[in-house]
């Protein structure tokens, strides 16, 4: 039962992940991304990590991808010709590939988690407390810094988008 | 002051406006020339004047002259010659103009007089306008509106007189509506020369009736209906059929004989309801024969042809034209064309073109009856002279198609195109008809349609525009009154297509465009255009045909140029 579900969700996730990259139609790609996230959430649920699953859904599926779609539709980018690889995109792609390889290599080499730790995670996975505790103790500073960075970014976006209004004299 | 009169004109003053009119004109006609309406009932320009309706009362006066010295008496107030106004109103119809005559039609006295006359005319009138067929063209309605007082003081019972009296086969009389103008009586006596009508009894018992043992049944009886100013005389045929205000009037020509009486066709939504005469003082005055008024019934006759047929089976127009073309090709040089004196000038022109293209002989069917010396002439074809003018024929047609019969018997003719003519009735026998392939353009089913190779339905004179040349060589136009019947095709289009099928040139089929072609091809019509043809027609030069023995005798406004050749073949 569990393995069937795992296979189902992992297949869905992988196929949709490929779909995000391969799809020329931006709306289809965003749809694939959404399904991909749902698949990942399903995998999380199987690990009894309900909190992660639903936060993933709430933040990424519910809000971020919705905004993606929103912008794709507003800009109507789907008819555009795709750009070829330029120097910088090739470089970025290679970097991303290298990072992916590194990650996979790391998991392959030392990704094996010992059973007691897994069990402990499984027991606490469904519970809020460990997450909260970690967030508000060990990782308080990073969380705050990241939050602050996001706030700055948001302010920057607002300032940039408001710039037009000041440039064009109001009548 | 009064201007010097021209030799044959007299100058009169009507409502302050001076006008020179011919001597002998009465005041109503003179006033009409200065657009002053003098209301009248009994007066009719083509009938004698009796002055019995008293509606046309006017105030009249003459310039004052000193009886002793004959010197004009001047009015010190205006500095003009004084007018001696007659203290009583005078009738306009019975008063002929005289030099210096002064007429007033708007004074209180005239107004009072008219109101009085109207009141008397209306006291016994049944006021049944909702039922009356004259409503809408009734002089009594018009003048009650224009000159009446607008209300009735008559509270007594109205007179009762016979209603629904049949004066004759075509005329119904409602005596209650009669205002005793006697127009009908005078018409019967003077124009129709059939004195059958008269008044009986006196006072308010006066009643119009036929003389004992007589009936109003002459061929001009319906003219009494036309001239009746009220709804007393009504046409039995048109009675209660349709209100006149719904009817569209289209100028037309009576097709029953070569007189070419001018008519108006009254129609509504494609249905013709009646035909009335149209005034043309050169042709028919204001009259027409009863027999011409029922011709419209042919339009919706049950035997109207409505389907193109090839060998008796329904087909399509283009296929029929192709079939005709094949017949023409297969029998080149053995084709004859029978035109018709009932066709319009345009159709006869196209028939001529067809004959030329086919190198065919042309024939015309003659119809001769007895002329009634009034408005029905001996030649019952309306347009034989059109065939002469367009060159379709050069001699008058024989009574029977003897030539054509002989040619068929001799095998020289194998295909006959007939334009609206019944060849069996025109003199071909069954054996001759069996030998030929017949192409029929016709409006109504005829005896030989079953044997015809190709039948193409065409239009009656009411469904198309065109021209006729009458016995006076007067070319007169008529217009399309109702839309063509479904399935029938305009003769012009059919003929033009046949000309094309025979290998001739393309000819326009729209009347105005066609007339340019006709004007170019026919010298006698070189200056004529359809659009500019006057309502009263245009006289053509008759001299090239003066030697021909026309059959018509004398009719109204027509005298034969030479003694009538006795209708030997009649």
């Amino acid at each position, binding site marked *: 039962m569990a393995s069937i579900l795992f296979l189902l969700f992992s297949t869905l996730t992988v196929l949709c992940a490929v779909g995000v990259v391969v799809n020329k139609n931006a709306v289809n790609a965003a749809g694939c991304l959404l399904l991909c996230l749902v698949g990942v959430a399903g995998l999380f649920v199987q690990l009894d990590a*309900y909190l992660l699953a*639903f936060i993933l*859904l709430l933040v990424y*599926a519910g*809000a971020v991808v919705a905004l993606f*779609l929103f912008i794709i539709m507003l800009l109507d980018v789907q008819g555009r010709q795709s750009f070829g690889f330029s120097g910088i995109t090739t470089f970025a792609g290679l970097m991303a590939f290298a990072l992916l390889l590194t990650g996979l290599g790391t998991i392959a080499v030392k990704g094996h988690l010992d059973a007691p730790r897994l069990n402990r995670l499984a027991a606490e996975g*469904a*519970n*809020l407390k460990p997450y*909260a505790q970690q967030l508000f103790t060990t990782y308080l500073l990073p969380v705050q810094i990241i939050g602050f960075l996001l706030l700055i970014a948001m302010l920057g976006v607002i300032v940039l988008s408001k710039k037009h209004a000041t440039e064009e004299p109001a009548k | 002051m009064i201007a010097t009169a021209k030799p044959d004109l007299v100058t009169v003053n009507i409502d302050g406006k001076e006008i020179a009119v011919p001597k002998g004109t009465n005041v109503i006609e003179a006033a009409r020339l200065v657009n002053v309406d003098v209301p009248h009932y009994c007066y009719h320009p083509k009938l004698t004047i009796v002055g019995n309706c008293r509606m046309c009362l006017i105030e009249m006066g003459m310039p004052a002259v000193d009886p002793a010295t004959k010197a004009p008496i001047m009015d010190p107030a205006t500095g003009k010659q004084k007018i001696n106004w007659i203290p009583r109103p005078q009738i306009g119809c019975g008063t002929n103009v005289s030099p210096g005559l002064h007429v007033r039609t708007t004074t209180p006295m005239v107004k009072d007089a008219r109101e009085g006359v109207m009141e008397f005319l209306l006291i016994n009138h049944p006021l049944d306008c909702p039922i009356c067929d004259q409503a809408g063209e009734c002089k009594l309605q018009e003048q009650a509106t224009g000159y009446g007082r607008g209300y009735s003081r008559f509270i007594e019972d109205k007179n009762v007189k016979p209603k629904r009296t049949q004066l004759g086969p075509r005329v119904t009389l409602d005596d209650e509506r009669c205002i005793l103008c006697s127009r009908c009586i005078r018409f019967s006596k003077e124009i129709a020369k059939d004195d059958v009508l008269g008044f009986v009894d006196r006072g308010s018992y006066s009643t119009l009736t036929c003389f004992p043992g007589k009936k109003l049944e002459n061929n001009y009886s319906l003219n009494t209906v036309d001239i009746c100013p009220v709804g007393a005389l009504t046409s039995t045929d048109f009675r209660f059929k349709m209100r006149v205000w719904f009817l569209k009037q289209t100028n037309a020509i009576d097709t029953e004989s070569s007189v070419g009486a001018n008519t108006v066709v009254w129609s509504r939504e494609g249905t013709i309801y009646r035909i009335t005469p149209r005034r043309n003082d050169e042709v028919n005055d204001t009259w027409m024969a009863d027999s011409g008024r029922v011709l419209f019934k042919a339009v919706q006759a049950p035997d109207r042809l409505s389907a193109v047929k090839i060998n008796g089976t329904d087909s399509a127009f283009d296929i029929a034209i192709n079939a005709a073309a094949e017949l023409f090709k297969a029998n080149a040089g053995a084709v004859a064309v029978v035109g018709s004196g009932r066709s319009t000038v345009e159709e006869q022109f196209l028939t001529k073109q067809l004959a030329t293209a086919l190198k065919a002989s042309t024939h015309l069917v003659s119809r001769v009856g007895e002329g009634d010396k009034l408005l029905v002439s001996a030649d019952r074809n309306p347009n034989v002279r059109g065939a002469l003018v367009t060159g379709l024929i050069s001699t008058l047609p024989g009574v029977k198609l003897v030539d054509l019969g002989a040619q068929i018997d001799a095998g020289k003719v194998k295909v006959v195109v007939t334009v609206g003519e019944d060849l069996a009735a025109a003199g071909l026998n069954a054996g001759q008809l069996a030998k030929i392939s017949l192409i029929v353009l016709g409006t109504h089913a005829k005896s030989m349609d079953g044997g015809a190779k190709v039948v193409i339905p065409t239009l009656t004179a009411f469904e198309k525009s065109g021209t006729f040349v009458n016995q006076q060589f007067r070319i007169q136009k008529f217009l399309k009154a109702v839309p063509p019947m479904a399935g029938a095709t305009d003769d012009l289009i059919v003929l033009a297509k046949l000309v094309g099928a025979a290998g001739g040139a393309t000819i326009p089929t729209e009347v105005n465009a066609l007339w340019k072609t006709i004007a170019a091809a026919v010298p006698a019509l070189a200056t004529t255009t359809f659009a500019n043809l006057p309502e009263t027609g245009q006289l053509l030069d008759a001299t090239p045909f003066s030697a021909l023995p026309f059959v018509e005798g004398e009719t109204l406004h027509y005298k034969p140029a030479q003694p009538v050749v006795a209708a030997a073949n009649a």
Partner: protein
Amino acid sequence: MFDFYFEIPLVIRLFLQGLAVIMVIFPIAGACSMAERKVAAWIQDRPGPNRAVVPWVAWIPFLGTFLQRLGIFHVMADGGKMLFKEDSLPGHVNKFYFVLAPIVAMIPALTTVVVVPFGAYLDAAGKIIPVGLAPLDVGILAVFAVSSLGVYSMILAGWASNSKYPFLGSVRASAQLISYELSMALSVLPVFLWVNAPGMEATMGFGRVVEFQSQPGFLGGMWFGFLMPLSAFIFFVALFAETNRQPFDTVESESDLVGSFHTEYGAFKWGLFFVAEYSHMIVGSGVFMLLFGGGWNPLPWVPLADLVGWLAQITPLASHPLFVGVLSISIFLGKVLAMIFLFMWVRWTLPRFRYDQVMKIGWQRLLPLSIANLLFYAIAIAFIQK
């Protein structure tokens, strides 16, 4: 007595339970559309739909007429119409997403029910056990997460319709839903701060919340709606916005957007959108009642257990788990339906906000208010529960 049921394999049992819940939710959502018409009519001094009738029901002397006047059969007539009328597919639409959108609308609407408990029973120990398909620890998060996916149906429907008004509607929808999700989430946090008292196992489920509202004592028996009125208010307002109900139905505003995202839809696909909307309302009302309205407790300070105790004095049958379950589910359903009536009542009372007003209320009023509310309760709870 029901042992045979528990012998059925779990998967099938879950499937049956899910089906049962859907079989309840779906007709209620359909009936809501009828109720909406009736409420609208009553508020407008009209009798409302009262004509349709099934013959053999009409023969029942009193009840038949009553049901007919109530318009019950119009639901069936409407459903039949939706099913059988021609389902047109406009030529200019993106067919795949056009068909997908109403299906996507149904998924979150029916999935969220899974984590919402809708009743309770007393176990052998006399402990209240919530009844629900999947009582998760993270219940409220699951509801938020899954219901946030509902926006996709509107976005897809609007975009796939390939027409002006639906697209504008879908753009509004996505912005509005995302805007009010923030306030909504922040408004419920004080409740969970309160129920996650020190020393207790951390949870974001609904069971604990209802449990907290069933305690003895003045504060204990008080529903959170009274304890945290501002939270309840913010949640309530945000709920209107999230379900696109008047006065926040700018998404579907007929006067300026024709029909918004469902302009191009008809027949059954259109009906699915409506059922989804009412399902959202039902689930939203349920969540509201669980969090702020005492869940299946009949009255404030009168927990379900007390009621069952009183009834058990009359008849011992009252303490049977089945009876308690039915009783609690009825109470809860009654509350939910009352809440839905409130939705309708508001709809036929208030005019629609302008879109800029909606955004202004969301970001400039409700969001600061909910943050202040959160801070206030965080500090207050910190003091109380220290």
